[in-house]
């Protein structure tokens, strides 16, 4: 972008409403820029990658653990499939599963937190007790238990991760809602006799957006890393799915011969997670929200 265009764009944006001004600010922070670049790259790869794969992910193209060469730029995996093609196809599962889990977690946790924080009283007590039970449970353990009960599959992963994240989210939303309900402008609305739904919509939700966006980054990262771990352990997706974490598990024995079978997917997972963290951190810092996690919540 030429200087004048970006200058004019930034000038336009500066006269725009706060949300658009935020975009301009994002472009200024170095870390956020790197984060956005990484994130965009991975997202692009996930969306259009499969179209560029030289071979189908299940095709055998050469001998197992072949080193990089023509037709298999990153070598082959433990059966002989093209690593590059599998890598290009393998991001979808991680990203989509993590996305689904995070959305579920927010729907569940967000609703519980909002209701508990606004209605207060006994409802709040009951809801938070239930939440406390889940907080006292080791995360991995819960999902493993679920998998024992219903068998390993992708939706166990989604539902499991969704459930284990909702307690913390509900706490965050509850705290934010509690803080808001005491604020003068919310009380003025209550005094006017506005309906609860209207107050939640007009007064409370817009002010929770900030908390939510700042919180979303670490949550999504957690989902991604947990999805990867579960797929690696064989509790979620299993071979022959071209999932990045499954690839890491499958190709470990051949690490000495062709590192790419393990390194390529590992690198992509790492870039995705780091990018989200950079973007999330920069946002939280700008909004003056501490990026340091509450020591009481693991």
């Amino acid at each position: 972008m030429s200087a004048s265009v970006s200058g004019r764009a930034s000038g336009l944006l500066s006269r725009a409403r706060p949300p658009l001004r935020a975009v301009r600010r994002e472009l200024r922070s170095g870390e956020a820029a790197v984060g956005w670049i990484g994130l965009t790259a991975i997202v692009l790869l996930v969306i259009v990658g499969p179209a560029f794969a030289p071979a189908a992910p299940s095709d055998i193209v050469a001998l197992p653990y072949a080193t990089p060469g023509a037709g298999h730029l990153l070598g082959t995996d433990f059966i002989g499939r093209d690593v590059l093609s599998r890598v290009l196809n393998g991001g979808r599962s991680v990203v989509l599963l993590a996305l689904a889990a995070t959305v579920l977690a927010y729907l569940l946790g967000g609703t519980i937190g909002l209701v508990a924080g606004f209605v207060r009283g006994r409802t709040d007590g009951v809801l938070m007790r239930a939440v406390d039970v889940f907080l006292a449970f080791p995360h991995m353990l819960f999902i493993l238990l679920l998998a024992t009960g219903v068998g390993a599959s992708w939706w166990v992963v989604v539902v499991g991760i969704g459930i284990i994240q909702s307690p913390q989210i509900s706490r965050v939303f509850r705290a934010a809602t509690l803080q808001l309900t005491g604020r003068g402008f919310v009380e003025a609305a209550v005094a006017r006799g506005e309906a609860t739904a209207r107050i939640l919509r007009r007064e409370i939700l817009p002010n929770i957006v900030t908390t939510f966006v700042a919180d979303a980054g670490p949550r999504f990262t957690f989902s991604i890393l947990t999805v990867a771990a579960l797929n690696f352990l064989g509790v979620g997706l299993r071979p022959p799915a071209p999932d990045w974490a499954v690839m890491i598990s499958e190709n470990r024995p051949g690490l000495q011969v062709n590192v790419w079978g393990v390194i390529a997917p590992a690198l992509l997972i790492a870039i995705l997670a780091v990018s989200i963290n950079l973007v999330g951190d920069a946002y939280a810092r700008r909004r003056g929200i501490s990026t340091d996690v509450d020591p009481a919540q693991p």
Partner: protein
Amino acid sequence: MTELVLRADGLRIETERGAPIVESASFGLDRGEVLGIVGESGSGKTTTALALLGFAADGVRIAGGTVTVAGRELTGRPEAEIRPLRGSVISYVPQDPSVALNPSMRVGTLIGEILRTHAPDRNDAETVRAALRNLQLPADDAFLRRFPHQLSGGQQQRLAIAMALAAAPAVAVLDEPTTGLDVVTQARVLEEVKRLREASGISVVYVSHDLAVVAGIADRIAVMYAGSIVEIGSTSEILHRPRHPYTHGLISSIPDHAVPRRLRGIPGVAVGVGERPTGCRFAPRCPRRVEACETAIPALLQVAPGHDVRCIRAGDAPPVALEAAVRMREAAPPILSVRDLRAGYRSRAGEVVAADGVSFDVRRGECVALVGESGSGKTTIARVLVGLHKPDGGRIELDGRPLAATARARSREERRRLQVVFQNPYDSLNPRQTVETAIAGPLRFFGISHGRPARVEVAELLAKVRLPERLMHRYPAELSGGERQRVAIARALAAGPSLLVCDEITSALDVSVQAAVLEVLSDLRKELGLALIFISHDLGVVASISDRLLVLDRGRLCESGPVDDVLRSPEDPYTRRLLDSAPTLPVLAAHVDS
């Protein structure tokens, strides 16, 4: 001539990026003297106070000038040389002791530490106890073992003062030491300070935003505005014949229950660091400005012995002229009647009684003030009136018809006619809504339109609270505290109420801003015939705008009557105690033409 015990010369303090906070502060302190430094937000008074100890907070640096205390220099020298002087030659009493005292150190350790550092030969149990007794604090072992959070607010502040005096410094700097304390405790702490000054001959720099408090204790006063001292002189000179327009405006805006009068605010907004205009910093708000004021900063010049002013028109300063407060005379029918109200709430300490059989009436167009200290129950009563809190018993009637306990159960008409404005300006508006949206909200909700688009209505309401129309598109974060409160008032007015409940709406604002908001409120009352329930802990504010006064003592209505009667001849001992503790400026009586 006595040798000055403290001397500040041309102090210049900047942020790390070079924006000036304090531009040029010069003053001296005689032995045994009390100098008051008065200023509002953005004046730089706290920064100046810290600089007297050679201290600059994070992101700030002392860029120029000198500070000398008892012959020792505190500026321009390495930290290691200045440090031994802090606490021993000059010491500091912080504004908020509840956060300034280390929560994990006991009382005895806190004082002992000061002695260990600055007076090791006197560091023994007896000296520690003496330091406590000096401030009328208990000196037994149990008290020495307490942690700060186990002390009351007043005790914490006295402990902070005891620590400041433990090493017998030559100068003590007190930075708003009574903010956050209730009026009675504040009076007690001030008495302590006065007594200590007599007893030990220590010199004091007393920094505050409250001119009335400072006038009660200081020998000389320096008034600061936007980073410079604009006037300095003896207390009586400043109060009788202020020469600087800002000081003038400040005195006109100070509420005083002994001299009930109309308060006049200073138009405009206090300037923040980095927004200062060229030329005289006060010029944009000054009623006496001329063209020359905007070109150059005036120098601090003497107008009388010991009295310096930074204004080119100091010579023709008019006397302070104040108007007596106006009271409502005609009797009108009651619009709200409260009978035997009982309400309470549960806090961590148990059940708190907020209202214990409270009864009163509010007549049309009348302003009734509800006064009491914090914890007296006034806020709860306000919330009960607007339907935010369920009472335990009693009746409330609006125009003769009983009101339901919760807002939701009331009729739309009832809710519309009774509106509320709360204390905290940072709370009263939704940060994600523009001013226009905020004010238009009630218009839309109550279905009010006089055949005109909402925007026109909003503009008119803004004009009523003396705010420019262009503020419509701003977000609350871009407004000052006073502007926000006025928007909150406009929003309440949008519903077209007959009765407005104001819960400490000006307590969080600077004195001059408070006066401006109160001015707006008085004018609105007259114009709209609005009845007002005004809740406050400040008797001076109440004296200036209300017609009748109700005094609340821990939920019990202990006195009520026409405001002038109650203030002049209180019957209840609690009322008397409140009146005695509230600082007054008797000199103001001389300025009022009745």
